């Protein structure tokens, strides 16, 4: 049984808060909830959200976590904290006092990050719990509605989950409203003022086509489908919005994994070193801390990489080496100021780009690997020649960069065509073949699946007899970059994939449209 009670936690928490404030952390009010391991597994399955809408995939992930836990394959996280105001964190009842202290300190790090980092500004932390609860109630309502039922709700959710990350990533950039978009189109169509009017032929004013849908390439697939598929019922649109909302909430966490974990680890290390733990607790802390932040050879442990980056950044401002002073000039602020500044204004990509230098990369022994035959083989290491390439490759893999971008391009003009976008679960596994064109049966199976997904939306009217549906799937890759000169096929609207920079990714695009 645990060697602590609540009064111990409160005692240490007071000391930790004192240090946190001394560091300059700025946190939401914090709530800690003590739970047992089953609760913890359940929180993990639902990403820590206390009231979340039901879907079988959470049952699946719970079963998986539980099996792994019970067979001792993986442990449980010491801590789990969600981005909300007040921030909600769970402490596991069976953990030792030292672990609880470490966890509490770590949680304040995350809390501070949630509150201050710019990527989280749009998540509206004070409404987090309420929003999720409202989502849960609505989904349950649809499930219990005798005219809808669990099967139809699931079929929409399954499909929506497949596309949920296909949305705009940088939430700090405001999305234009349709009116603003039209305005810009008109402005862009105006011929630029030409100082040499007499020499040039007068450029002709071309009326922009404002009927196109979308006007500009669109990345918010679920919202777009929800807004523009005329055959969806209201509850179906609502489900799409709910799934999109959740993705929007979680994207900042995907975008700042390394920074966030590194920051929390840095914070707990600083705090625990400062609060004068008794010796036995301190020794245990050293063991636990190193278990968390040790490097994972072959992989990339965000705790480790993050912690090293933050530590190095502080050093660069507090005790810069002579070369650094020569290269960047003398530091204009203290290390701590710099850290607080960076934790507010960066996300993983920018953070790594700005602060991951050659020396640190060599210390971390980062390398780039490539599949060769059956093996993964190191292709470049962080030496004089290679470190920039390795870094570029790393930047291509962190955060949302690991998720393909899919856009719906504006259709080629054809006024008589009505477009209807459907959604379908995509069997991506079957689509991934070896760089070549798919074999015929593979293609057929995938298409069948897509069509079924669309046809299932029959409830919403997509399968109405007067609507002809066609699902089109196409892959592109670096071998065949999208040709900007070739006109898009007529009477079709594709979702195209922007992936030309990557070497040979296999991507699938889909579009479905019906014409009446």
């Amino acid at each position, binding site marked *: 049984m645990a060697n602590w009670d609540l009064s111990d936690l409160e005692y240490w928490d007071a000391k930790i808060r004192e240090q946190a404030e001394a560091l300059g952390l700025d946190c939401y009010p*914090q709530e800690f909830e*003590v739970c047992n391991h089953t609760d913890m597994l*359940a929180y993990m399955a639902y990403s820590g959200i206390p009231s979340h809408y039901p879907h079988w995939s959470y049952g699946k992930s*719970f079963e998986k976590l539980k099996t792994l836990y019970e067979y001792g394959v993986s442990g449980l996280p010491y801590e789990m904290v969600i981005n909300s105001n007040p921030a909600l964190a769970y402490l596991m009842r069976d953990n030792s006092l030292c672990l609880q202290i470490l966890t509490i300190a770590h949680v304040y790090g995350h809390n501070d990050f949630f509150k201050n980092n710019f990527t989280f500004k749009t998540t509206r932390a004070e409404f987090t719990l309420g929003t999720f609860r409202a989502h849960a109630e609505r989904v349950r309502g649809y499930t219990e509605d005798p005219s809808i039922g669990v099967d139809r709700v699931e079929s929409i959710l*399954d499909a929506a989950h*497949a596309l949920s990350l296909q949305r705009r990533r940088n939430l700090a950039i405001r999305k234009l409203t349709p009116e603003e978009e039209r305005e810009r189109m008109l402005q862009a169509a105006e011929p630029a003022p030409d100082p040499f009017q007499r020499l040039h032929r007068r450029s002709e004013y071309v009326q922009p086509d404002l009927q196109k849908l979308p006007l500009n390439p669109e990345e918010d697939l679920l919202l777009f489908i929800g807004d523009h598929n005329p055959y969806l019922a209201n509850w179906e649109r609502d489900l799409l919005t709910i799934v999109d909302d959740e993705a929007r909430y979680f994207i900042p966490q995907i975008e700042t994994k390394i920074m966030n974990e590194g920051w929390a680890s840095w914070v707990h290390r600083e705090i625990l070193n400062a609060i004068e733990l008794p010796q036995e607790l301190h020794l245990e802390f050293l063991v636990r801390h190193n278990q968390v932040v040790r490097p994972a050879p072959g992989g990339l442990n965000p705790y480790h990489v993050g912690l090293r980056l933050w530590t190095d950044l502080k050093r660069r401002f507090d005790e810069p080496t002579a070369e650094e002073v020569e290269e960047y000039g003398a530091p204009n602020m203290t290390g701590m100021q710099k850290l607080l500044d960076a934790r507010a204004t960066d996300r993983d990509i920018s953070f790594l780009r700005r602060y991951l230098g050659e020396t640190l990369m060599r210390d971390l022994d980062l390398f*780039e690997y490539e599949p060769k035959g059956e093996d993964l*083989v190191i292709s470049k290491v962080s030496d004089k020649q290679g470190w920039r390439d390795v870094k570029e490759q790393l930047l291509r893999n962190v955060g949302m960069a690991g998720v393909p971008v899919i856009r719906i391009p504006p259709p080629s003009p054809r006024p008589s065509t009505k477009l209807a976008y459907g959604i379908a679960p995509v069997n*991506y596994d079957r689509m991934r073949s070896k760089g070549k064109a798919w074999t015929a049966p593979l293609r057929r199976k995938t298409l069948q699946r897509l069509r079924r997904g669309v046809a299932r939306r029959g409830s919403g009217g997509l399968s109405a007899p007067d609507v002809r549906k066609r699902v089109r799937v196409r892959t592109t890759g670096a071998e065949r970059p999208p040709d900007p000169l070739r006109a898009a096929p007529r009477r079709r609207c594709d979702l195209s994939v922007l992936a030309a920079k990557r070497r040979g990714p296999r991507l*699938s695009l889909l579009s479905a449209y019906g014409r009446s």
Partner: protein
Amino acid sequence: MPISTIFRPFRHSDAERSDRTAGDRLRHRQKIRESIRENIADIIAEESIIGKSRDRVIKVPIRGIREYRFVYGDNTPGVGQGDGGSQPGQVVGKAKGEGQAEGADKAGDRAGVDYYETDVTLEELIDIMFEDLDLPDLERKALRQIEALRMTKRRGYRTVGIRVRLDKHRTVKSRVKRKLAAQRREARGAADARSDESVDPVAAALQELDEQRLDNDGGAQRGDAIEKRFPFHVDDLVYRHITTDVRRESNAVVMCIMDTSGSMDTMKKYLARSFFFLLYQFIATKYRSVEIVFISHHTEAHEVTEEEFFHKGESGGTFISSGYQKALEIIAERYHPSLWNIYAFHCSDGDNFDSDNSTALKAASELANVCNLFGYGEIKPLGSRYYESSMLNIFRRLDADNFQTVLIERKEDIWPSFKAFLAKERVQD
């Protein structure tokens, strides 16, 4: 700004009460079950389940309950961390599945990449398989012996029971009764206290009670007179009582007749045995006391034990009639058609000795006369159909409603043919 913090202690009651994942887990399992049911033909073809004990665990690939997302392919480079001194060319791991797809048919060392597998015991699998199958056309015969348990008899109400049998209506009613009684008692107590007053105390108290009730009705708007909580008590709970009712159904016997002649090569025997194994498992699962007779024949027929039937190999020529004669003999001896439902199934490669054909046809029609169902499965692994003779042509002359033939060419055919024999709603032509 100082941070404010709250600690919430662990509460046992919360943890016990809420199992928030229960619904989603159940749904997930249902999906697995559906997926298994859809793929049973493949599973039976892929797994050698013959003669395996019922608690053996088999791996079943699950299709259709994966979650899909757009991802980049496995052929993209990644970045990893070494333990110092990494050199170009060093091997750091295995590429996932994809690398092996090219040409080679080798099994990957990561089975989980394309498949999502689950462990099922054979018993569970069999349950799922036989869910909607039944011995067809079971007739009522004299001297019924098969026990069929039915849990349908309702026998009144009890105060103890399991949750699902809680009768909510009656429970609420008994709470209301108890509440009224309690209020009356309270009223009477109040009346006793005022017994010195001249008015009829009970009547006055009751009137007061009525007023109070009216107040409560109106209280919804005012919100001040909230009714005192009157929770359910253990005594209120009423459960439906259900007893098991043993019903006897008709006697039944299943005759398994298998050709074990020399022409039945390993593949054919395997198919035949798989078929009979399914049949055996089916009967053992669904019926408590159906008798099974095993007959194996080449030129002569013998009644054999289950063990011998499934494991012993024999050789020799083929007289199909011998198997049928033996079955008829056994029926005449032990299972009179007026008392027993008789089901006969025969698996053979149909490579019968020519001179036996007419006898076999005659015996078959006799057998069809006494049986509820007589099934003939002809086992012709792909290709062999073209150079071997077939009994299917000969049996075509046999005109009996309860006689069915199927052709089993591959492992995948076993399950459909099995279902064709036993499906609940057989097409009556």
